[in-house]
């Protein structure tokens, strides 16, 4: 929000206020950045230096990239990335397709079952059986340890459907009517008339869907048993939380060897390099997509 500064002189009070304000916000930015900065600095420093300072290096010391060599030669990390892309692509894709299709139906005029379907959809937002029956269901369906367990059960989304439906309702009816008169089918109207006008909402839904898959770790933990199917966060969990040293050391695929006396610091370095490699992609993408993410918050807040 801009406020025109029509004043020529600022009172002392206002100057003090502004200074304090800028100072507080600057400190806040530093607090937000510090953990990441420390992780980056440590990850490119020597294990000896990191051990002596307990990880609190202000500048990188004995710079070398051994930790990154280990990370990039770790086959588990590569399969993790590939798996995450697989889940992200099919999961977000299936969900988005179903969201568009069902939102279209729910926004169509003169449909006898529309109200019933709407109730059928919305009730699920408030009622559910919880984790245990869902777990047993997945087991009974034979989806346990299948890649599709992270795709099919999440192939619909009621909240996004309602958002998309609201968006379709906001598009002038005249467009649909004109297309109908020209003999367009429902599918044509959706994909040729409505979707080209729904770019922003689509971006929001797709981006949040992708972020959801990027962060997913709990579901893979309980539904997947083989490491070859793990998404990146599950591999990271083993490295960062369970401190699985064998996995950390690149599963024997690397020639980099650390001095045994600095082994624990070297492990920290490798953990940090993993964090950097797995966090940088999203932090690079995020500023460009920021406005869509923010739009998502505004859409989401309409409910509350």
């Amino acid at each position: 929000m801009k406020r025109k500064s029509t004043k020529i002189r600022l009172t002392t009070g206002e100057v003090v206020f502004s200074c304090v304000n800028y100072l507080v916000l600057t400190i806040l930015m530093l607090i937000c950045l510090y953990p990441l900065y420390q992780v980056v600095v440590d990850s490119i420093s020597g294990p000896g230096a990191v051990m002596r300072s307990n990880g609190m290096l202000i500048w990188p010391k004995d710079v070398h990239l051994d930790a990154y060599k280990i990370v990039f030669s770790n086959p588990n990390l590569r399969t993790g990335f590939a798996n995450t892309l697989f889940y992200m692509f099919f999961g977000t894709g299936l969900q988005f397709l179903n969201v568009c299709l069902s939102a279209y139906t729910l926004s169509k005029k003169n449909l006898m079952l529309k109200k019933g379907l709407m109730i059928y959809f919305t009730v699920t937002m408030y009622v559910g059986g919880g984790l245990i029956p869902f777990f047993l269901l997945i087991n009974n369906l034979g989806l346990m340890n299948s890649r599709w367990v992270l795709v099919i059960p999440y192939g619909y989304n009621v909240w996004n459907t309602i958002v998309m439906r609201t968006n379709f309702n906001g598009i002038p009816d005249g467009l649909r009517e004109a297309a109908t008169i020209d003999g367009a089918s429902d599918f044509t109207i959706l994909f040729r008339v409505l979707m080209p006008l729904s770019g922003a909402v689509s971006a929001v839904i797709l981006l949040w869907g992708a972020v959801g898959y990027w962060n997913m770790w709990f579901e893979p933990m309980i539904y997947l048993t083989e490491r070859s199917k793990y998404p990146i966060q599950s591999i990271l969990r083993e490295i960062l939380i369970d401190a699985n040293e064998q996995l950390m050391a690149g599963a024997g695929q690397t020639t980099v060897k650390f001095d045994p006396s600095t082994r624990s610091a070297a492990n920290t370095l490798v953990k940090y390099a993993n964090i950097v490699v797995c966090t940088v992609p999203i932090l690079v993408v995020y500023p460009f997509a920021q406005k869509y993410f923010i739009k998502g918050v505004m859409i989401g807040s309409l409910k509350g």
Partner: protein
Amino acid sequence: MWHKLKLDMRRNYQAYLMILPSVLLIAVFAYFPTYGIILAFKKFKPALGVFGSPWVGLKHFRDFLSSPYLWRLVRNTLGISLYTLAVGYPLPIVLALLLNEVNCLPFKKTVQTITYMPYFISTVVICGMVKSFLGYDGVLNEIIKALGGAGNVSWLSEPKYFQTIIVWTGVWQGLGWNSIIYMAALAGIDQQLYEAAKIDGAGRLRQIWYVTLPGIAPTIIIIIIMAIGSLLSVSSDKILLLYSPLTYETGDVVGTYVYRKGIKGAEYSYSEAVSLIDTVVNFLLLTGANWLSRKLTDTSLW
């Protein structure tokens, strides 16, 4: 009636076809699992299936309600929620107010981009950093030593620090992001009010108090009411990644307990009973909060 429906189906078969996949998915993955509620009243035997297992009535409920875990879960869940409410809710408002007073646009944009950033770091990575920084030979102890303290605490093994760690890492992650909603409310305040206040001789602080705060009051109230509605549903993501038997005493909440007993311990019936109690209490709280919100602010979830 049937005739009309048939006609409608035939005329709009494409539209019905389009919604069919979602309807089926919802039937299988949302409605069907609700049958599992009866698990809570049975002694589940995998060989007999959910329906074939023998009934045990309210046994699991009695077991849980008389177990020492009940008090521990309620205490921890309420503790973490109230703690979050106390620091996690006012701080984004303060941030929004401070940002609102910044006239230099590039600076404002920078602050926004940087404070929103932690929100995009994955939970696993955040917990990985917490584990490393708060370890015995971690960065936090080093900072404390540099400031002259002892710095010999293993932070994640001490029950008394656990809730603080969970709540403040949440603040770190969500502070900027949660301020977005208030920034939007601030953008909607009529600028003439500020002009009028200035003419009346109000300084910056008075303008905030008499114009800005009343302007975003409805948003603040709604967010608080909704927070009360979810007082007993603490997200168990970070807790699951960070707690250990050492910190169960202060870290265990319903979500983690159900996961440990149900998924890991395979006590399906018992944990479903616990989960059912939780669902019912949460539903009542949310309904209550929603009712309150509608009475006070004319805004509600449904």
